[in-house]
């Protein structure tokens, strides 16, 4: 029987939760955490870029806003990062709306470039903003193990379960919304905006909603990241490279699919970490080459991504009719 939809999600979740119990090497634990992080980040990107078709290469801005918000609140005002996360997400969502308002009138490439410029502006602003640490960044001092403060030292596991929770919530959100009117309308906006409009879709409104949702979750991930690495500066969270990294897993895994971001992250992150670790100095750039090659390969040969590939294999394996709606949703 083919596993799909919620049961598949539950199965994967069980697997994901069990995996780290057999891994004690912090290096590999780190890989797991990063993989989950980028799954979530890319899933958020997918909401706006995959479903709604608005490719944003400026997501780092929201990542950074989330990170900075919760960090400043925590280090200066003692606010728990758990709350800071929510606030960071909300602030990111607001900025997303503010940015979307002028940018959504642009179509296609123009929009993409606009997102890049906006993010770069953010980067420059934070770089020169002394109150927020400017180029030196902000260090998060360790105050002792605590869930409320979201800091752990003896083991990375709590971080892992934290990010997995975030990723799972986001997955559920994507699953639910893909089935709802919102999801359908987003796909219509992506597919053919003129036709969508003629059928009563208020395009601007839905684009804004997608932007807000995407920014919100990206911001939350940013907060998590800040707590995990205990140090943030513009170069680590607000750069264009970061924006690109956020989008890559989905591109590889399948834009506009439910599992695309996860599949892509599982392939890309471990690979790049391992490559970087084993090839070290002279290998610099090799991970980039592999990244780039994979992206080019996917974009030219199979734009539907790895999920599309899996769907094809299933079809030719003689299983049920077409890739089910939720595989493609």
């Amino acid at each position, binding site marked *: 029987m083919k596993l799909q939809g919620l049961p598949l999600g539950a199965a994967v979740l069980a697997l994901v939760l069990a995996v780290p119990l057999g891994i004690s090497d912090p290096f590999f634990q780190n890989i797991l955490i990063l993989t989950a992080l980028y799954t979530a980040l890319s899933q958020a990107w997918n909401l706006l870029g995959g479903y709604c078709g608005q490719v944003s290469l400026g997501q780092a801005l929201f990542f950074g806003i989330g990170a900075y918000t919760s960090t400043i609140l925590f280090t200066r005002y003692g606010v728990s990062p758990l709350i800071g996360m929510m606030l960071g997400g909300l602030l990111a969502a607001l900025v997303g709306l503010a940015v979307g308002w002028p940018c959504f009138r642009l179509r296609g490439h123009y929009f993409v470039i606009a997102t890049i410029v906006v993010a770069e502006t953010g980067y420059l602003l934070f770089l020169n903003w002394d109150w927020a640490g400017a180029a030196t960044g902000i260090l998060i001092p360790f105050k002792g193990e605590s869930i409320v403060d979201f800091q752990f030292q003896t083991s990375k596991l709590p971080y892992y379960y934290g990010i997995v929770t975030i990723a799972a919530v986001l997955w559920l959100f994507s699953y639910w919304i893909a089935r709802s009117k919102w999801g359908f309308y987003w796909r219509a906006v992506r597919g053919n905006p003129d036709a969508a*409009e003629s059928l009563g879709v208020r395009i601007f409104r839905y684009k804004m909603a997608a932007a807000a949702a995407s920014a919100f979750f990206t911001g939350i991930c940013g907060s998590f990241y800040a707590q995990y690495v205990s140090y943030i500066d513009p170069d680590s969270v607000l750069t264009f490279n970061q924006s690109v990294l956020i989008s890559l897993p989905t591109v590889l895994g399948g834009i506009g699919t439910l599992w695309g971001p996860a599949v892509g992250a599982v392939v890309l992150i471990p690979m790049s970490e391992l490559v970087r670790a084993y090839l070290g100095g002279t290998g610099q750039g090799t991970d980039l080459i592999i990244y780039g090659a994979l992206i080019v390969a996917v974009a030219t040969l199979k734009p539907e991504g790895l999920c599309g590939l899996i769907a094809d294999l299933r079809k030719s394996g003689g299983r049920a009719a077409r890739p089910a709606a939720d595989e493609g949703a």
Partner: protein
Amino acid sequence: MLLAVDDVSRHFGGVLANQNVSLTVAEGEILGLIGPNGAGKSTLFNIIAGALKPSEGRIRFRGEDITGRGPSDCCERGIARTFQVVKSFEAMTVIENVMIGAFCRTNSERVARGVAREVIEWTGLDGRRDALAAELTPPEKRRLEVARALATRPKLLLLDEVLAGLTPIEAQAGVKLVRDIHARGIAVLMVEHVMEVLMPLVDRVVVLNLGKLLAEGRPVDIVRNEEVIAAYLGEKFRARA
């Protein structure tokens, strides 16, 4: 009067595409909009659909002034349209395509699916329900356009050359579809070039030429109207009428 186009003009830079055009569509009637190429039919069509704003004049629909309202507004109020160059959602299935239309009237996915199923059935697309729009043949795609528009439960359906380029059998099927739509009380405004199919179908005809209203009336009168003939075939055929 369902739709009242009142003295509408539209210019693009120096070109006057529509000049003082007025027409009406009554509830449940089928109106044909014809005219030689460049007559301004598309412009007028798009103005009524909300895709273009008129430079002058007003549009009234069900008593409400909708001049200058966008396409999604018009759709909400009950005007649906098809596109001459079919604009399907290629990556979505037939039923998903139609559901987009259905969502105009509901927020529930279940209800939308039900409406879509029903529309797909009576427009004859039932066999292709789960096929991707990209896999459809051109006549099927056109039918999908119409089904999608119908799912928005319009009071007025604007059809843009839906009968063009069809084989006689396909054209017959198309005519039957329009008749079915008519039977459900939906008013239809059709832009067409294929005269022999259009004339038996419509209640009334409006003829545009060079941006202006040339003639209006029953099909049987229009085909014998000297000016119409002259507009289409040139002056030397006028005398032969």
